[in-house]
C-alpha cells in the first residue's frame, strides 16, 4: 500500500519544494502565502476537494471596505440618501440592510434621528433625559460668548454640514466655545446642527475619541446634541483638503491626524465585520485581515463542519521589547484559526462542541483524577472515595459506617478473625462490591487512557519547537557536509511541519474517540488513527536520528517518502471524519448526551 504513495507522490513532493522556493523569494507577498496554503493540500489530494476543506475567503481591509461600499450603495439606491448618510444609517442598524430599509420606509424621521443623521424637530422640547446630570439645567450660563448666543446671532441659517462659515460675514468675531479663542485665524466648523467650534478643537476631539475610546460614531461636541459626524466631515477635519481655508497643519500634527484617520477606517471595518456573521477578524495580534466563511456563519452548521480557516498571513509583529521576543517558529506561524470557536486554532477532526466539552472535562478531571486513581478506593456501599493512610485493613466508612476489608473490598462481617488471609476473594458479596467499584474505576481508566494520549500529543506538538531548532541546525550541517543546496535540505523543515500538524490531528482524534460509541464505525476510526499515529512516530524517529554524511541521500529519500505518507494518512483521517459528520455517521456514547441537551440542535448528527 505504501509503495503506491511513494511512487507518485515523490514527484509531487518535488513540486512542493519548488513552491517553497517561490515563497522564499517573495515571502512578503500575501497572495503567495495563500497559494502556499492551498498547495499543501494539492500535494496529495490533487484537484478534488476534500470533505474537511472549508470554502473561505481571506479579505484585506480594502476588500472589507469594498463589501461595506456595496451595502452602502445598495441602501443609497433604494432610499436615495447620500452615501455618508447611508453609512451612518447602516452602522446604526448593525449593517442589517433589510431591517434598516423596512424601518426607513416605515418611519423615516425616527430612523434618521436615532442614527444621528438629523437633529430632532426643533419644535419638540430638548431631550431632557432624567438622569442625575441635570443636563439642561446646568448649561453654561448665557455668557456673551457662549455657544447658543453665538449661533443665534448669525443672521443666516446654520452653514451646511462641514462647510466653513465665512468669517467676514459675521457681525461679531467668532469665539470658539471650546477653547475660547477668538483669533481671526480660526476656522469654525459645525455639523448640520450648527454647533460651531474651531477646526483645531474638532480635530483634538475627534482624535481623542478615535484614539483613546476607539469610537467610530463621533457625536457633535455640544452637550445633548446627538448628531453623528459623517465620514467626509471627519476626513475634512483631520486631513484638510488642498486649498481649504483652515490653517495648515505642521507635519507632526498631520502625521497624528493621518494615523487617526487610518484608525478610524479600521474601526469602521471592525464594526462591519463584527456585525456580519459570515465574517471574522483574524485573531492573531497585529493582523488586519478578515476571513469570510459563509458555510460556518450559523451556529447549527458547526455541528457538521470544523471551519478551520487561515487568513493567509504568517507571523506576528515583532515587539520592540527584546524580552518578549517570540520564538522563531511563532514568527513564521500561519494565521490559522477556527471560525466557529475560540477553543483552539485547529481542532480538526472534532467539531467545536465536542472539542469544547472535552477540554472542559480535562480541566475538571485530569489533575486530581490521576491522584485519586492511584491513592484511593471507593466505599463499596456509598461509593465515597476513601484514602487509606495507615492502620489495618478493617475499614469503616466515615460517611455510611460501612465496615469492609481494604484488600478484597468485601464486607468486614464475613471476615471474622481471619481477615489477614483474606480468603474471601470468591465470596459473592466481595465480587459485587468490586463490580460497582470497578465500573467507576473503569470509566476513570477509560478517560485517562484517552486523556494521556491526548496530552502526550499536545506535549509532543509543543516540543516540536525544539525539534524545529534542532532541525534547522541539522539542515545547516547537511549543507556543510554534503553537496546538497539550501533548497534541497528543506525536506527536513517540511517534515517537521507535517509531523506537528499530524500530532494536532492525532490529539483531537483521542477527544473524538472518547465520545464515540463502540461499534464498527469507531473501530474504523481507530484504525485510521492507529495508522496515522504509527506513521507520525516513524517520521519523528527519523527526524531525531543522527546524520551520517554518506547516508544523506538515503535519509532524504526516506524522510521525503515518510512525509508524504504521513500527509496522506492525515488526510484520510480528516477527510473520513469530516464525511462522517456530514453524513451523520458517527454514533456517540452516553457521555455526550449532556452536550446534546446543551446545544438543543436539530441537525446534530443522527444516532445521537
Amino acid at each position, binding site marked *: 500500500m505504501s509503495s503506491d504513495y511513494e511512487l507518485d507522490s515523490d514527484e509531487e513532493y518535488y513540486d512542493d519544494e519548488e513552491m517553497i522556493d517561490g515563497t522564499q523569494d517573495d515571502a512578503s507577498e500575501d497572495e503567495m502565502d495563500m497559494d502556499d496554503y492551498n498547495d499543501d493540500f494539492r500535494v496529495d489530494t490533487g484537484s478534488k476537494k476534500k470533505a474537511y476543506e472549508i470554502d473561505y475567503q481571506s479579505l484585506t481591509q480594502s476588500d472589507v471596505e469594498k463589501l461595506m461600499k456595496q451595502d452602502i450603495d445598495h441602501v443609497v439606491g433604494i432610499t436615495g440618501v447620500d452615501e455618508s448618510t447611508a453609512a451612518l444609517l447602516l452602522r446604526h442598524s448593525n449593517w442589517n440592510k433589510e431591517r434598516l430599509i423596512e424601518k426607513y420606509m416605515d418611519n423615516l424621521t425616527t430612523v434618521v434621528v436615532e442614527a444621528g443623521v438629523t437633529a430632532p424637530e426643533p419644535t419638540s422640547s430638548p431631550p431632557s433625559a432624567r438622569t*442625575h*446630570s441635570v*443636563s439642561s439645567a*446646568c*448649561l*453654561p450660563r448665557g455668557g456673551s460668548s457662549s455657544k447658543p448666543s453665538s449661533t443665534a446671532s448669525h443672521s443666516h441659517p446654520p452653514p451646511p454640514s462641514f462647510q466653513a462659515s465665512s468669517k467676514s460675514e459675521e457681525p461679531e468675531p467668532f469665539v470658539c466655545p471650546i*477653547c475660547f479663542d477668538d483669533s481671526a485665524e480660526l476656522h469654525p466648523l459645525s455639523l448640520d446642527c450648527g454647533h460651531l467650534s474651531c477646526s*483645531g478643537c474638532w480635530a483634538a476631539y475627534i482624535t481623542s475619541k478615535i484614539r483613546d475610546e476607539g469610537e467610530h460614531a463621533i457625536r457633535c461636541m*455640544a*452637550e445633548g446634541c446627538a448628531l453623528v459626524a459623517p465620514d467626509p466631515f471627519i476626513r475634512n477635519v483631520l486631513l484638510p483638503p488642498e486649498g481649504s481655508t483652515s490653517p495648515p497643519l505642521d507635519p507632526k500634527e498631520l502625521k497624528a491626524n493621518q494615523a487617526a484617520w487610518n484608525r478610524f477606517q479600521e474601526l469602521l471595518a471592525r464594526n462591519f465585520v463584527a456585525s456580519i456573521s459570515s465574517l471574522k477578524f483574524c485573531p492573531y495580534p497585529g493582523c488586519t485581515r478578515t476571513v469570510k466563511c459563509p458555510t460556518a456563519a450559523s451556529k447549527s452548521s458547526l455541528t457538521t463542519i470544523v471551519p478551520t480557516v487561515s487568513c493567509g498571513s504568517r507571523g506576528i509583529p515583532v515587539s520592540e521589547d527584546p524580552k518578549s521576543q517570540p520564538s522563531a517558529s511563532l514568527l513564521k506561524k500561519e494565521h490559522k484559526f477556527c471560525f466557529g470557536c475560540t477553543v483552539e486554532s485547529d481542532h480538526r477532526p472534532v467539531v467545536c462542541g465536542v472539542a469544547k466539552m472535552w477540554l472542559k472535562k480535562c480541566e475538571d478531571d485530569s489533575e486530581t483524577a490521576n491522584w485519586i486513581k492511584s491513592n484511593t478506593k471507593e466505599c463499596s456501599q456509598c461509593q465515597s472515595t476513601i484514602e487509606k493512610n495507615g492502620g489495618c485493613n478493617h475499614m469503616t466508612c466515615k460517611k455510611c459506617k460501612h465496615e469492609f476489608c481494604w484488600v478484597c473490598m468485601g464486607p468486614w462481617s464475613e471476615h471474622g478473625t481471619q481477615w489477614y488471609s483474606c480468603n474471601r476473594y470468591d465470596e459473592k458479596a466481595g465480587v459485587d462490591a468490586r463490580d460497582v467499584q470497578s465500573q467507576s474505576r473503569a470509566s476513570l481508566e477509560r478517560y485517562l487512557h484517552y486523556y494521556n494520549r491526548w496530552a502526550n500529543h499536545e506535549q509532543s506538538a509543543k516540543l516540536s519547537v525544539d525539534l524545529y531548532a534542532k532541525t534547522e541546525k541539522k539542515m545547516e550541517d547537511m549543507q556543510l557536509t554534503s553537496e546538497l543546496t539550501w533548497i534541497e535540505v528543506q525536506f527536513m523543515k517540511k517534515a517537521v511541519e507535517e509531523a506537528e500538524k499530524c500530532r494536532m490531528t492525532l490529539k483531537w482524534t483521542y477527544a473524538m474517540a472518547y465520545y464515540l460509541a463502540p461499534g464498527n464505525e469507531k473501530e474504523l476510526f481507530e484504525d485510521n488513527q492507529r495508522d496515522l499515529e504509527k506513521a507520525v512516530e516513524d517520521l519523528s524517529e527519523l527526524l531525531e536520528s543522527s546524520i551520517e554524511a554518506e547516508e544523506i541521500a538515503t535519509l532524504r529519500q526516506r524522510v521525503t517518502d515518510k512525509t508524504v505518507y504521513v500527509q496522506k494518512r492525515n488526510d484520510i483521517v480528516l477527510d473520513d471524519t469530516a464525511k462522517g459528520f456530514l453524513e451523520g455517521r458517527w454514533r456517540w456514547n452516553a457521555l455526550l448526551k449532556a452536550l446534546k441537551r446543551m446545544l438543543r440542535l436539530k441537525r446534530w448528527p443522527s444516532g445521537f
Partner: protein
Amino acid sequence: MSNPCKRRLIRDFKRLSSDPPGGISGSPCPDNIMLWNAVIFGPADTPFEDGTFKLVLTFDESYPNKPPTVKFLSRMFHPNVYANGELCLDILQNRWSPTYDVAAILTSIQSLLHDPNPNSPANAEAAQLYRENMKEYVRRVKATVEESWLDPGDSMDVDASNAGSGSSDRNV
C-alpha cells in the same frame, strides 16, 4: 496642546469671576492653573442648606476634550459620593461634552446634591436611607453640613458675598 487647555481654563476662570452662578465658587491654585479649589454651597430648602462643601478639580492637558477629576474634600453623606470624596456623575464620565466648563461642572454637582440618583449608589448606606428612611437621611446629611464648617485646616472665607470673587484661594 497646553495652550488650548490653559487658555480655556483662564476663560473658565474669567467667566466664573465675572458672571458667577449662584452658590458656587472656584479658582485655580495661584501656582498651578491645572488644579482648582472650589466651594459648593448647599442649596436652600434642602438638607444640604448652609453647607460649605469644598472640592478639588484636577485638569490635565486633554481638557476640555476629557473631563477633569473632581473630588470632595469635605466629608459627604450622599448616595453618589464615595467615601474618598470621588463622585459618580455621568457628565464627568461617559456623558462628558467639551462644551462643559467649570461653572457647568460645579452647577451640576450642586444640583446633584439635592437630586441624587439612588439607582447607581456610590454610598450604599446613604442610598438606602434616601429611599427608605428620609428622616434619618436628613439627619445624617445635616451632620455633614455642620462638619463642613469645621473642616480642619480650613482657612477659607465662606461668606457668601465673597463667592466668585476669586479671593477664596487655598494653598494646597
